[in-house]
């Protein structure tokens, strides 16, 4: 394999990996605040892409994306206050099942509101045929957008959870909801905020990846599964780990294609997931101590 090809495979891996990472980050935020795995995360991504596409028909791209993020955040907030809040007494497992139900609900609603056709948001810079050449290998400018926005989000989340009072309060909620409440934290609004944040980030992801992957009402399920693998692989609760794991999985898949038929791609990624879970159940970057305190 020539150096140029190797680089091309790396770029291909990064492209796919950054899409996975975007979904995984969303899982982590809600998990951090509630301990729930929100399986409707993929649907937030889908909603973001769909709404932005609709608005982009009669306004520039930037306001369309902003509106999509805001509307999806609102949907996340409504979901939390209508379903999740009322089921606090249910076990965490029960809540996860509820999120699966919500994902089906959102998917069917999207089919009803829009239709079964695929849509693609226009490219942020350039078009379908433009590509940037780096050392002889080519990459779509959209991938640079995805990477840039992922970096900004991860850095922002890191600072938010580490240094702001709200961020610390959200983390406290996940450690122990009752203790957090006793400390005077408004746990309800923290959990609600986590859903809004996660839905908003998912929607933003849906907008950035739409030009490449296209948006379809049923795209959420597949994204949710891959994003979940990545979140587990990195160690739940850590956004930076999710990005690292996402890129790692993307690269593994990409290089597996270079030597094996593509049909084996998912088999390889699942085998790696199983090996990691057996060897290190808390994920590559997760701490054993932290994970022993969680429900999962």
């Amino acid at each position, binding site marked *: 394999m020539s150096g140029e*090809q190797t680089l091309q495979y790396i770029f291909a*891996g990064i492209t796919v990996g950054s899409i996975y990472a975007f979904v995984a980050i969303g899982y982590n935020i809600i998990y951090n605040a509630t301990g729930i795995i929100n399986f409707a995360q993929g649907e937030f991504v889908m909603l973001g892409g769909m709404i932005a596409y609709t608005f982009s028909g009669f306004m520039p791209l930037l306001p369309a994306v902003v509106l999509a993020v805001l509307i999806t955040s609102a949907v996340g907030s409504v979901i939390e206050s209508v379903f999740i809040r009322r089921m606090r007494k249910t076990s965490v497992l029960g809540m996860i099942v509820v999120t699966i139900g919500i994902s089906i609900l959102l998917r069917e609603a999207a089919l009803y509101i829009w239709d*079964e056709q*695929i849509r*693609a948001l226009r490219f942020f810079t350039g078009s379908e045929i433009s590509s940037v050449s780096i050392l002889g290998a080519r*990459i779509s400018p959209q991938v640079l957008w995805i990477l840039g926005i992922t970096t900004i989000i991860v850095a922002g989340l890191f600072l938010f959870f580490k240094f702001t009072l709200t961020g610390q309060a959200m983390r406290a909620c996940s450690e122990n909801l009752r203790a957090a409440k006793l400390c005077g934290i408004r746990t309800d609004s923290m959990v609600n905020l986590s859903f809004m944040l996660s839905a908003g980030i998912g929607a933003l992801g849906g907008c950035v990846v739409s030009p490449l992957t296209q948006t*379809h009402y*049923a*795209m959420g399920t597949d*994204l949710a599964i891959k994003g979940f693998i990545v979140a587990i692989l990195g160690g739940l609760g850590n956004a930076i780990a999710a990005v690292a794991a996402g890129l790692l999985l993307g690269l593994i898949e990409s290089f597996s294609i270079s030597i094996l038929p593509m049909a084996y791609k998912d088999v390889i990624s699942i085998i790696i997931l199983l090996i990691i879970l057996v060897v290190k159940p808390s994920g590559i970057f997760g701490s054993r101590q932290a994970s022993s305190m969680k429900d999962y």
Partner: protein
Amino acid sequence: MKKFLAALLVISVVLLTVSTSCKQKEEGTVKIGAIFAVTGGASFLGAPEARTAEMVVDEINAAGGINGKQIKLIIKDSAANPEKAISFTKQLIEEDKVVAIIGPSTSGETMQIKDLCESYKVPLVAAAAAEAIVDPVAGYVFKTPQKDSYVAKWIFETMQSMGIKRIGVVAANSGFGNAGKGQLEKYAPDFGIEILIAETYDRAATDLTALLTKLKAQNVDAVVNWSIVPAQSIVPKNMKQLGMDVPLFQSHGFGNIKYVEAAGEAAEGIIFPAGRLLIAEKLPDGHPQKENLVAYKSAYESKFGEDVSTFGGHAYDAIMLIVEAIKKADSLERTDIRNALESISGFPGTGGIFTFSPSDHNGLGMDSLEMLTVRNGQFDFLK
């Protein structure tokens, strides 16, 4: 207890009258079943198919029905799930007692119910494309989309005229994709074309850069992509982003203008064989299919406000063929309908001119397809 028994009696009497009145009402109708993937991963096939079938049936009923009888179309949504297709088939045959079934949308589902329809002796006119549906021929199973082998041969003929010798093939890992890949591999040697690499990808694939890098490394003269899934728009985008300037051929699954829109500029120059529905207005006047095609296209587009696709056309052909067969047979016996279907000849549909025979249950020739390309975001003749 007495009250309870009395209530039970009343209920059963009511139920009995309802069911008998239903029966009486339905004696004057022709029941046709339809199985389409209206939702799920193949909804871009099933949804236009279901809409088309409903529209056509409404039109026929408004015009007086078949031989004075109204058609009752019972549509089931299989969501492209073969298990659901099987149970819906049984339900349509045993409970609804339909005279014939149209659909399913996907080749995988159709292959699952092929034997079922054969053993129940119920005519099935499939809207799915794989050649295995009618090869080997099953007495009661027909299909409307053009044969895969014609598509493969058209692609290779065009390649020959363009001087293309070494190609790469990518196909979706689905019934349709695998069948197409098989046809390409089967006929390539006949045309002196060498397939350097043939790969399948997951139908939910969102990025195929890595796969295309592998093809690029082989220095192929052209790429063939065979699928019905949205990846049809991803392949051209990824090729352009990788700087691959070789021609891209696609299967007849590309017959949906939405895929062109989703691929944008990257769709320019894609070459694919398809029925004439997509270029109905551009056909010369007097073409035997033109009148039908333009009528269906304008009716569909004005009713649903969306562009017509070849898939809806397959359902149009399926229902029209069954209606024609029932008219011809002048009977509602399944066997009579089957025999009438098999004897249909020179019937103009959207996919081509259908002429069935005991050995050919597709009824279309090589000339049912036309090589098309994308020019300025529109489908157009290649030449």
